[in-house]
């Protein structure tokens, strides 16, 4: 470990214990890895007030003092006309604070610099130093620099910069303790770089050269043979990954592998969650007395939340794998690869990361469009971002692809990829229309840093996964739970007397149990849909009795749901969705999804409770076997399932996304117009496409 603290030429101001440390750095300098290494799970993620830029605030674990670390967005320069740069400028100026923090300039600025790319990073250091804030430099990736033969002496660098420099490695943990110690007493720097940008650039070059020259004098000539070989290796990999044919084939293989893994690996934890919720329901039904409370807990709370949480493994796996891929440095290459395909549609590779982020959630995706320099291109990207299949759609995709291809993970993965491809294609088509009409213009030329290829950090990926998983679980425990409770109430009331047929089945079952009639007599006395099922089966009176009671409950459940408040609402709106093949139950599911798409699976679970044996079947099985009001016709026929899948791929069903669109597209009445256009356009396309699919397949 190497630490260096310069001797200030002037005595520093009275010692002050820093409580707020702003973490600043270029993208790809390992800032996030360092933040995670310092704070672990003790951080909160939110937005900077009045902005949609994500802010992470963590508490240091390596010190007894209370130090809050504010993770600012990665920036190349504080002076660029980009939202990230503006956020960083405002935080350093004290005019913007992270959530829960006082609005004042940070006590200390910690600039994370990449030891393997020092010269460029020093420009940002200079921009920070000239703001006259106590500054400390975290010379990150020092292990990688040594490996490449780059010998940077923190003491020499500290001498040149006039502020403390600590050599660290967020990856290995090297130097973290010293960094924390340094953070508690950072003096004001005694060097002030020039005020002009050209001046700072020249200062950065001179500082770098001076520091490296001194280092070389002490360390001797470095051996860069290995680094040169590594660079040539990177050249070869880049040529393949950005090749129009080979690169595309690799991209397709990566995407297929990603989604196949999601299906195959998540199956075990998903099954476990279903079993746990199923067992919990059975246990509660056995322990609690029959009545409204038991019904509310099992059919409302557990059925609703359980059917959403079952998709948690897949969502977490998606974020984990995307984080791993991002960390390898591949995505920047992929941005150039897709640039050539996006350009004809009026979008550039700049939109790749926002659109890719939208596959997790449209909200950060739309926020990320701020990185698109061209205003019209940015607006077009905002409008089409929600077409990308977000994680909220995953539960619906999983449900419907499982219903379409039961027990065939490869086919499910293909259908899943098809959904993503359809969303992306619809997005590109919409972008083309927009760029040829209301947002006329040409795609902007691209420039991107291509990070070094490296082994991804499992820890960083796990942190991201934990963060996103927690957010999803919180959503399931709050908004989705609330919607499920409302839906349960609407679908359970008003209570009705037991229908005559159900009553009759119960009576026959009672007689069977009492032994007053035979199984033959019982079969002759029961009619309707169960009659065929009973024929030739149920020679054992106890078994026949069980079948009769189950059917009686199903008849009662269908009757109650059909005449419930929810049923009435569903029947009112059903004519709108009738051409798409949806009955009133599906219409309710689609309607409820406008609050949040994830709600669809839980809505269907709540609605279909009672239409079959809820005690012995999982939520997925119950939905799969759910029938329409006649008790015979399945709700999810292949044509309906495909139509529904297409509808969910294309429709705008997310109120928060509309709100962010309105805000990011200018706010006020202009923003509302863009949001309205997005809603009408997406829902219109979804309706027409789903209609065509249903009419063709049925």
């Amino acid at each position: 470990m190497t630490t260096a603290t310069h001797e200030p030429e002037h005595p520093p101001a009275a010692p002050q214990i820093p409580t707020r440390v702003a973490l600043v750095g270029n993208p790809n300098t390992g800032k996030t890895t360092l933040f995670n290494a310092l704070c672990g799970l003790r951080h909160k993620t939110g937005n900077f007030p009045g902005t949609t830029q994500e802010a992470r605030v963590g508490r240091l674990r390596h010190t007894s003092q209370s130090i809050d670390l504010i993770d600012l967005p990665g920036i190349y320069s504080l002076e660029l006309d980009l939202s990230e740069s503006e956020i960083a400028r405002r935080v350093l100026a004290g005019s913007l604070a992270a959530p829960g923090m006082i609005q004042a300039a940070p006590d200390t600025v910690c600039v994370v610099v990449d030891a393997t790319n020092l010269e460029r990073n020093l420009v940002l250091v200079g921009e920070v130093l000239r703001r006259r804030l106590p500054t400390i430099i975290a010379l990150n990736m020092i292990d990688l620099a040594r490996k490449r033969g780059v010998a940077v002496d923190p003491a020499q660098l500290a001498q040149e910069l006039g502020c403390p420099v600590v050599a660290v490695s967020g990856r290995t943990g090297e130097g973290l303790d010293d960094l924390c110690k340094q953070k508690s007493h950072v003096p004001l720097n005694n060097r002030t770089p020039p005020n002009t940008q050209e001046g700072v650039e020249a200062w950065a070059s001179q500082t770098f050269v001076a520091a490296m020259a001194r280092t070389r004098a002490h360390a001797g000539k470095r051996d860069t043979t290995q680094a040169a070989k590594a660079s040539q290796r990177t050249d070869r990999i880049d040529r393949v990954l950005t090749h129009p044919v080979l690169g595309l084939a690799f991209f397709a293989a990566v995407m297929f592998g990603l989604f196949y893994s999601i299906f195959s690996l998540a199956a075990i934890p998903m099954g476990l969650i279903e079993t746990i919720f199923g067992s919990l329901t059975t246990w509660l039904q056995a322990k609690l007395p029959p009545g409204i409370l038991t019904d509310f807990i099992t059919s409302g709370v557990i059925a609703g939340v359980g059917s959403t949480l079952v998709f948690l493994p897949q969502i977490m796996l998606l974020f984990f794998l995307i984080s791993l891929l991002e960390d390898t440095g591949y995505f920047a290459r992929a941005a150039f690869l897709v640039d050539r395909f996006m350009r004809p549609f009026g979008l550039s590779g700049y939109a790749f990361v926002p659109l890719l982020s939208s596959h997790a959630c449209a909200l950060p995706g739309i926020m990320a469009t701020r990185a698109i320099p061209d205003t019209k291109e940015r607006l077009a990207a905002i409008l089409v971002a929600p077409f990308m299949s977000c994680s909220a759609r995953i539960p619906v995709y999983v449900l419907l692809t499982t219903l379409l291809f039961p027990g065939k993970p490869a086919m499910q993965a293909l259908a899943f990829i098809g959904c993503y491809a359809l969303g992306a294609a619809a997005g590109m088509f919409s972008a083309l229309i927009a760029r040829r009409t209301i947002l006329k213009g040409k795609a902007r030329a691209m420039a991107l840093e291509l990070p070094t290829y490296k082994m991804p950090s499992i820890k960083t990926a796990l942190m991201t996964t934990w963060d996103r998983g927690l957010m999803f679980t919180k959503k399931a425990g709050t908004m989705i739970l609330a919607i499920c409770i409302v839906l349960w109430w609407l679908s359970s009331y008003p209570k009705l007397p037991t229908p005559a047929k159900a009553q009759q089945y119960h009576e026959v079952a009672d007689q069977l149990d009492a032994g007053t009639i035979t199984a033959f007599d019982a079969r002759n006395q029961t009619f309707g849909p169960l009659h065929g099922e009973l024929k030739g089966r149920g020679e054992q009176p106890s078994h026949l009795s069980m079948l009769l009671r189950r059917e009686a409950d199903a008849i009662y459940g269908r009757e109650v749901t059909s005449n419930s408040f929810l049923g009435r609402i569903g029947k009112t709106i059903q004519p709108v969705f009738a051409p798409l093949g949806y009955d009133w139950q599906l219409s309710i599911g689609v309607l409820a999804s406008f609050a949040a798409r994830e709600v669809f699976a839980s809505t269907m679970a709540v609605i279909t409770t009672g239409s079959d044996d809820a005690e012995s079947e999982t939520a997925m099985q119950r939905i799969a076997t759910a029938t329409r009001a006649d008790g015979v016709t399945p709700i999810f026929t292949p044509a309906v399932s495909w139509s529904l899948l297409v509808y969910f791929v294309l429709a705008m069903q997310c109120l928060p996304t509309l709100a962010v669109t309105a805000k990011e597209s200018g706010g006020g009445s202009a923003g509302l117009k863009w949001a309205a256009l997005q809603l009408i356009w997406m829902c219109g396309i979804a309706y027409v496409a789903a209609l065509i699919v249903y009419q063709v397949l049925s």
Partner: protein
Amino acid sequence: MSNNSNNAATPNHTNCDCPPGHCQQKSVALTSLREGQTAVVCAAMTSMPTDDAAYVRALGLRPSAHVRVCRAGQPCIVEVLSGASDDSACCQDDASLAGSCSCRIGLSRELAQHVMVELPR
């Protein structure tokens, strides 16, 4: 500088917009270089839109930066070699710097053709 591949360059020389006396040779567009060639970025890229120029500059492609072409064409991938701007410091040979103290930047052909570079003497 030792770079034999530069002898094979057959670019269309054009005058860049560097301040008088900055460039010792006529400059060429970055797109004219072949894979493996090294060059020095000339001063302000005035033919490029202002925002693009500021961003490209912030990425590290600023005047006097030494670059090596890793991939020619679309995209044009260059390695910006740190410290190479000072002959007396650590970089007598650009090739020896490759990958050790550098960053890699991808540019669309449209932008790369506005980046004027000077071939090494």
